[in-house]
Structure formats: structure tokens, C-alpha cells
């Protein structure tokens, strides 16, 4: 048997003759009119994107911006669904709307399969992951997740104030995914920096973003090499050994998918747990009802996912077209706001209210169509266990200081500081 020499730094670096992507001028600063100059990276959006999107849905349901080299923002459920389903007109080549577009040659694979992939490649790349993320497969991690949540709360012993975002919510998905990938559990804090760079640092200078990405890939290569030498029963070894169309995966595919699992699984779930606790801290009646009726939690959790959907995606327009009344140009972005779709009154009764016993809830927090979140069963398990353990152990809590709560800007939204007073 020959040694697996796919994972050298040279193999993973772009070739000197590889096509470059395009960059546009970075525009920041206050938005003049959300209908024609929107930006999901400004503090006003981070503070309350719902008000902005509700307003746009009424007066300009497909908003436009000249920032980021041009883009659109549909806010009606039916338009968001139509974009998600139409993989002919909209590409996933890049799903983070910023000032850089990867070269067109990157399609249909993209940098982090399957999220960055288009048909027909997408289907097979996604299939590789599905068996590890079924409801049955992730249920095997429930016990360890529960024990870990208890341990986090044990560490609060004697304290009256804790940061539920930084000291609880954040740690849970980091631990779970590090365990699934077979990474050293103590590396958690390092992942956090990688993730911040890729999702929240969108308007940083390109050199700085590239340097951050390089750190992430260096880390991943080291983990992969370690697994090549000592194969284990985890996702990293699985990806190293997996085959697609009769061949081992390219090193870019392995590293890109690992980066995706690390990034897609952490910020998102952290945000969902944090937003749910924020809701309960600010709505004592809902908190008391869930403590009294724990059986309602699965239903309530879906409502938190609807109302505070953490994830917004993006697409790139494949060719010039008139789309539902607006002139889309090739390479324009579409900001695919699942949160906006989830608050469309044409789809949900009392859309702006949080009803923890909502029975009919066809929300799209995990997307729609072929890119449905591969991790949705895992995320639901983590969210349910995190909330169950918190409510069991710390049933009474309020915000320590409303002004100290901060929310992330960009495409993953959730509390980043959430000081709670325990009583």
C-alpha cells in the first residue's frame, strides 16, 4: 500500500496559474435607504434586522444594494423559497455575501462542498455526509452532550451572574463537533478565532482574511496528517478514506468539508441556544411555562428557530435576467434571508409574535431544497439538550443588564454576550 501523500501544503495551495476571483471596493458606513443601499454588516442591522426586513417586505419586497458589487434582498417567504429551489438561475459558488467573488471556474464544486456546490456535483458530495448526521446517528451523542452541559453549569457554582453566550451556548457545539471530527478537545478556543474570521470578518482587508484562512487550513492539515498516520473512528478518517466516483476525494475537498463542518456547526448552534435563552430571560411567562411543562420544549424550540432563525445564506446570479420584476445581473448577490421568510405574515399567522405552543410551523431556519442543513438533526439535539439542562438546573434567570447584550453582525445572528442574573 502506498502512503497517502495527498495532504501536503503544496497540494492544498492554489496553483500559480489558477484563475483569481474578483474583488470590489469595500463600502461601509450608515445606510442611506435600506431599499436601495442595504448592508447586513452595519450595526443597525445587527441590532434589529427584523424591523428592517418587515419594513422592506411591505414597501420593496426585493431590495437592492450597490455595495458588495451589487446584490438583492428578497424578504417574502415565496421569493426566498423560489431562490432556494432554483439552482439553475442561482449558484452556491459563494454563500457569504461580501466583497470577494470566487472565480467562476470554482463551480460546481466550490471551496467547501457541499454548501458551495451546485448540481450535479452537489448531490454526491452531500450524500457522503448524510449517514453520519441522521437523527439516529446523532442520538448516540445525546448522553455525552447532556453530561457536558451539566459540567458547564456545575462550573457556575456560587456565581450570581454568568455569560450564557460565552460561558455556555458557545462551548456546546464546539465540543460536539471537535468530538465528531476527532480533534483535541482542548482546541476549542482556537476554532472560535477561525470561525470569527470567516463569518464575521467579511469587511476586513483581504490580506487579513487570507491570513486567517491560512491558519485554519494549517490547523486542518495537521489534524488530517495525524489521522492519516493513526486512523480513528471519526469523521476526519471517514473523509480521508471516502471515495467519490471511484476515487479518493481531492485534498481540497477533504479540507474544505472539514472547514465547513467546523464553521457551519458552531456559530449557528451557539446562536440558536443563545437566542432561545435571551428570549426566556426577557419573557418570564414563557420561561415559567416551559419549566412547568417540559414536554412543550420541542414545540417551543421550533418557534425559537422560526423567530430567531440564526442563518442567512447567499447566492450568485448566474445570468442576466428579469426576476419577479427586478433586473438581476450576472454575478449579483442574492442575500437569502431565511429569517425574513420566517416572519412573513403571508406564510405565518401572527408572524411577529413568539408563540411557544405554535402547532403549525413550516419554518425554514434550516433552509429549503437540496442544501437543507445536513446538521439539522444534530443542531436540534444540541439545542433541545442545552435548553432542557439549563431549565432544569437554572429555572430562574433574567438579563443582568440589557445594554450589555451584544449580537453578531453578518449572516449568522445570535447573542455574543448575554450576561444573565441567576436567582
Amino acid at each position: 500500500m502506498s502512503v497517502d501523500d495527498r495532504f501536503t501544503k503544496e497540494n492544498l495551495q492554489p496553483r500559480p496559474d489558477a484563475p483569481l476571483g474578483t474583488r470590489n471596493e469595500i463600502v461601509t458606513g450608515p445606510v442611506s435607504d435600506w431599499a436601495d443601499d442595504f448592508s447586513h454588516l452595519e450595526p443597525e442591522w445587527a441590532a434589529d434586522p427584523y424591523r428592517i426586513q418587515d419594513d422592506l417586505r411591505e414597501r420593496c419586497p426585493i431590495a437592492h444594494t450597490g455595495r458588495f458589487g451589487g446584490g438583492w434582498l428578497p424578504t417574502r417567504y415565496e421569493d426566498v423559497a423560489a431562490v432556494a429551489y432554483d439552482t439553475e438561475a442561482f449558484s452556491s459558488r459563494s454563500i457569504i455575501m461580501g466583497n470577494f467573488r470566487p472565480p467562476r471556474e470554482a463551480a460546481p464544486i466550490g471551496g467547501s462542498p457541499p454548501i458551495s456546490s451546485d448540481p450535479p456535483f452537489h448531490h454526491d458530495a452531500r450524500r457522503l455526509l448524510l449517514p453520519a448526521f441522521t437523527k439516529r446517528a446523532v442520538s448516540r451523542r445525546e448522553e455525552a452532550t447532556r453530561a457536558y452541559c451539566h459540567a458547564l453549569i456545575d462550573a457556575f457554582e456560587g456565581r450570581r451572574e454568568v455569560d450564557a453566550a460565552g460561558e455556555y451556548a458557545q462551548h456546546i457545539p464546539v465540543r460536539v463537533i471537535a468530538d465528531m471530527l476527532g480533534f483535541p478537545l482542548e482546541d476549542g478556543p482556537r476554532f472560535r478565532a477561525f470561525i470569527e474570521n470567516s463569518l464575521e470578518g467579511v469587511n476586513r482587508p483581504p490580506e487579513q482574511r487570507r491570513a486567517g484562512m491560512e491558519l485554519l487550513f494549517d490547523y486542518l492539515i495537521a489534524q488530517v496528517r495525524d489521522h492519516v498516520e493513526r486512523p480513528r473512528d471519526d469523521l476526519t478518517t471517514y473523509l480521508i478514506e471516502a471515495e467519490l466516483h471511484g476515487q479518493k476525494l481531492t485534498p481540497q475537498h477533504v479540507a474544505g468539508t472539514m472547514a465547513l463542518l467546523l464553521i457551519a456547526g458552531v456559530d449557528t448552534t451557539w446562536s440558536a441556544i443563545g437566542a432561545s435563552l435571551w428570549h426566556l430571560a426577557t419573557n418570564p411567562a414563557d420561561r415559567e411555562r416551559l419549566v412547568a411543562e417540559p414536554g412543550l420544549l420541542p414545540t417551543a424550540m421550533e418557534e425559537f428557530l422560526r423567530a430567531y432563525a440564526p442563518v442567512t445564506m447567499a447566492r450568485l446570479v448566474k445570468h442576466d435576467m428579469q426576476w419577479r420584476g427586478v433586473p438581476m445581473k450576472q454575478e449579483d448577490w442574492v442575500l437569502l434571508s431565511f429569517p425574513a421568510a420566517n416572519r412573513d405574515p403571508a406564510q405565518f399567522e401572527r408572524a411577529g409574535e413568539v408563540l411557544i405552543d405554535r402547532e403549525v410551523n413550516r419554518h425554514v431556519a434550516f433552509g429549503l431544497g437540496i442544501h437543507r442543513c445536513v446538521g439539522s438533526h444534530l443542531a436540534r439535539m444540541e439545542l433541545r439538550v442545552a435548553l432542557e439542562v439549563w431549565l432544569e438546573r437554572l429555572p430562574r434567570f433574567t438579563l443582568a443588564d440589557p445594554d450589555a447584550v451584544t449580537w453578531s453582525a453578518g449572516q449568522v445572528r445570535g447573542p455574543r454576550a448575554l450576561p444573565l442574573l441567576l436567582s
Partner: protein
Amino acid sequence: MNVRIDPERCQGHGRCYDLAPALFGEDEEGYGQVAGDGAVPPGRLDDARRAAANCPERAIALEV
């Protein structure tokens, strides 16, 4: 009543087997499957309706 899943639409969100585990299960990739021949026992009509009403892909059909 009978339930049916349109495999072209189903994306494996799993709302059906979360909400009505007696009527639906998952295959090894997480896609929804109806249990048995899809016949809904009289006591499970509400479960069937709830599953259909919560499938984000509208992949579940109820047939009387």
C-alpha cells in the same frame, strides 16, 4: 386515511418522524419514509395532519 411522501420533494428535514414516529421513519440518509403501507389508524389522524402541516418541503400528502 393514507399518508404518502413525495421522494422528489423530501429533503430529510425529519419533521414527520419527529412529530409522528408511529407513522414515519427515516432511511439511512435521513429521508422520510412512511411506516408500512401508509394507512393511518383512526387514533393517529391528528398526528398525520400535524406532520403534513409542518413539512417545510410540502412533501407529505394525505389521501382520504
